[in-house]
């Protein structure tokens, strides 16, 4: 079984018939995996290596420099966190530049769309904004945002201003306090250079600081995206390969940053006519991965597919362009498109793929570039005429758009004066046993979506509310979990009652979906915001809440970083794929047990989704008992 997604399986047959290679083929060719790499026991940090350590206790037991397994594994892990942090914060910085350029008049393309959010964020960041013009306030916030990247003198505000007081103290006690994003990343690269930090515990504390910096970047990305492109509100759409339309110009937007995708949504509206002249019934934009989440959340643009199945839309023969920015974009797209008419269009100077069409997209030339990109796609559509296409008629209904503001808005229909009260009451009363954020990617080592589906079914049936982001949200979208009907089908009685009550109060004529799509991978910050709000409302720290996180099919370094900040904020965090740390019992022990003493959160590593659900449920119940709430057996 390669995928639980029927549309994906149909397209895998098509790929096989076309003799095309997919991620699954390459995965098979990568076997056997190198055991040293798999356990984190290969170090390439200097040219005396590569050095390996035998995990079975035989020689060699130390690298050339003398680094032992603990040092090697810890160094590898914190470098991954630094890379994850660099990715999310690079994404945030891009948004900060867009806002900054608009505020300073260097670009017209990024006006503030959500003034209320601008004021709210500015307020949280200590800018009063009283009597300020929008552009002036935006300028001040953008300046502040850009300053977050440099080394400061105080704890990194974009992270620390969004945490409970208890959390801030816990991090300070541990010495895991970043003062700027990029200096923290640079320090991790420095510390993991040959002959610098060799103490595994010290390295892990550095890694936690870097993950906190990642959280700052992620939060900033969410905040600035909402300011620039609007804060998501519930929206209906569809997901899966069946959203393609043979008669239209099919454009997949893939990658992460709405700086690109939101502009393409705008440009597509303007260019319907041009598409019509080319004989198309219109322009059909669709999203892939987190870009898909961004434009689904804000514009209801349907999601095409996610993560490991990103190559497959090309084999329908109906995809005219795949427009990408960065992160999680497989270079294989170009090879996949080589036998089709599909144009793979890269847009970022720092993320090119040889063989792709590159149309440089900057904040200044955004509109022109967007038009050029769509024109390229229309051209491809024209060249498609007469060719056979085969689109699997499979897609699911989706309700997405659950930003914190949207959730609070929906809850306020139950209690306008104290919107969090209904949520807290239901957690206390047991209708909601806890909340689990399910995030992360697909990983080719796991049959696609298997862990997402297995985990959600088990947790929902036990009255656990599921929030989803990233490709996890994508999986739930494609499998019909983001619908009112899914509440009827999967939610336990307590959860169903709550979802129905909220749905009715909001005039939806049915319950809320049991899995709430809260956004892209940077939007994990939205989940932390909810947890922090609930914790503050209850007067406890986040490490006391019946809240957990899971990345059951994760693959990226970003996910490692997210998981680490979730642990730092006191959450039990499940990983469904074994991270490369088994080579050090010290490091593995710290991550799965030792860190709990220090920060309250810890990693649960469990590849089996049913056992994972049981472990997560157990962790929620432990928290409930800690709060004096009634607990339930598995």
């Amino acid at each position, binding site marked *: 079984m390669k995928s639980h997604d029927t549309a994906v399986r149909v397209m895998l047959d098509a790929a096989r018939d076309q003799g095309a290679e997919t991620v699954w083929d390459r995965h098979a060719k990568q076997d056997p995996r190198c055991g040293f790499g798999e356990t984190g026991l290969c170090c390439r940090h200097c040219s005396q290596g590569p050095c390996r350590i035998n*995990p079975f206790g035989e020689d060699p037991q130390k690298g050339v420099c003398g680094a032992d397994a603990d040092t090697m594994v810890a160094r590898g892990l914190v470098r991954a966190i630094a890379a994850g942090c660099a990715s999310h914060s690079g994404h945030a910085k891009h948004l900060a530049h867009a806002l900054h350029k608009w505020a300073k008049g260097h670009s017209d393309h990024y006006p503030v769309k959500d003034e209320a959010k601008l004021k709210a964020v500015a307020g949280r960041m200590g800018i009063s904004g009283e009597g300020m013009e929008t552009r002036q306030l935006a300028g001040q916030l953008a300046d502040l945002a850009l300053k977050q990247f440099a080394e400061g003198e105080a704890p990194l505000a974009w992270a620390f201003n969004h945490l409970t007081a208890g959390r801030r103290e816990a991090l300070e006690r541990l010495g895991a306090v970043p003062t700027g994003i990029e200096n923290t990343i640079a320090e991790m690269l420095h510390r993991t250079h040959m002959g610098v930090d060799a103490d595994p515990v010290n390295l892990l504390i550095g890694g936690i600081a870097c993950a906190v910096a990642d959280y700052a970047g992620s939060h900033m990305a969410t905040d600035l995206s909402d300011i620039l492109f609007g804060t998501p509100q519930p929206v209906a759409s569809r997901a899966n390969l069946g959203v393609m339309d043979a008669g239209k110009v099919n454009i997949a937007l893939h990658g992460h940053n709405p700086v690109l995708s939101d502009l393409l949504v705008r440009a597509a509206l303007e260019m319907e006519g041009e598409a019509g002249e080319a004989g198309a019934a219109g322009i059909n934009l669709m999203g892939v991965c987190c870009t898909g989440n961004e434009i689904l959340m804000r514009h209801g643009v349907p999601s095409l597919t996610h993560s490991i199945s990103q190559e497959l839309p090309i084999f329908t023969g109906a995809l005219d362009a795949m427009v990408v920015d960065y992160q999680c974009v497989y270079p294989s797209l170009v090879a996949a498109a080589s036998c089709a008419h599909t144009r793979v269009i890269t847009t970022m100077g720092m993320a090119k793929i040889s063989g792709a069409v590159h149309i440089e997209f900057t904040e200044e030339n955004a509109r022109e570039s967007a038009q050029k990109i769509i024109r390229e796609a229309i051209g491809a559509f024209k060249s498609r005429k007469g060719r056979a296409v085969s689109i699997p008629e499979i897609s699911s209904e989706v309700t997405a758009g659950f930003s914190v503001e949207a959730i609070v808005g929906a809850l306020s229909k139950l209690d306008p004066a104290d919107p969090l009260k209904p949520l807290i009451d239901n957690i206390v009363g047991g209708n909601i046993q806890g909340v689990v954020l399910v995030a992360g990617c697909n990983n080719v080592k796991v049959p696609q979506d298997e862990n997402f589906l297995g985990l959600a079914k088990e947790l929902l049936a036990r009255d656990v509310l599921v929030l989803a982001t990233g490709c996890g949200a994508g999986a739930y979208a494609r499998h019909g979990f983001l619908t009112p009907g899914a509440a009827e089908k999967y939610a336990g009685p307590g959860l169903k009652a709550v979802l129905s009550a909220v749905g009715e109060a909001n005039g939806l004529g049915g319950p809320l979906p049991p899995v709430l799509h809260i956004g892209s991978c940077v939007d994990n910050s939205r989940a932390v915001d909810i947890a922090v709000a609930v914790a503050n409302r209850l007067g406890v720290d986040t490490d006391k809440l019946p809240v957990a996180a899971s990345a059951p099919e994760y693959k990226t370094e970003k996910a490692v970083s997210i998981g680490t900040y979730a642990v730092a904020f006191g959450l039990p965090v499940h990983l469904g794929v074994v991270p490369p740390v088994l080579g050090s019992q010290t490091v593995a022990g710290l991550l799965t047990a030792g860190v709990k003493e220090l920060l309250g959160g810890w990693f649960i590593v469990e590849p089996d989704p049913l056992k994972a659900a049981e472990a997560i449920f157990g962790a929620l119940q432990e928290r409930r008992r800690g709060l004096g709430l009634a607990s339930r057996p598995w």
Partner: protein
Amino acid sequence: MEFKEILIRPDKCTGCLSCRLACAAAHSRAGNFLGAVAAGEKPRARIFVHRAGGKNLPLNCRHCTDPPCVDACVAASMHTAGGGLVTNHDRQERCIGCWMCVMSCPFGAIRDSGEEDPRAVKCDRQCAPGDGLPACVRACPTGALTYGTVDQFSASSREEFLRKWLQC
């Protein structure tokens, strides 16, 4: 059926040592690599990769026709089992870990199990699942290790070789 051997193409060996990990893991209680590492097991690899003259040379038991290790075994533990397999895995309880076989193997392919009461361990082919491919061969990413029968010419040259060194 002719006894199959692990055939070695040294030029293809990159020295990644994957064969060693796979061999050790296949001989662990967990039976798989990550399980064995996670459980802190210390199973021993029975294949060796020598680095000599700038080249890599994987070596393991050749399952000799007149095995010096069997001659040397003072405990009647090492023996030639059916099909030509030279092994002591089915007579482990007899092994006293005296290292006579270790001393006698011209390939250096026998070693100590590393346990508190150590025994001699070697390639015993107790690593092959249904498809019959030894773990080291399955693990080799470059095809430096393959599994098959030595052709007639080679078989006779081996016999000659072994006779020569047995008598030297």
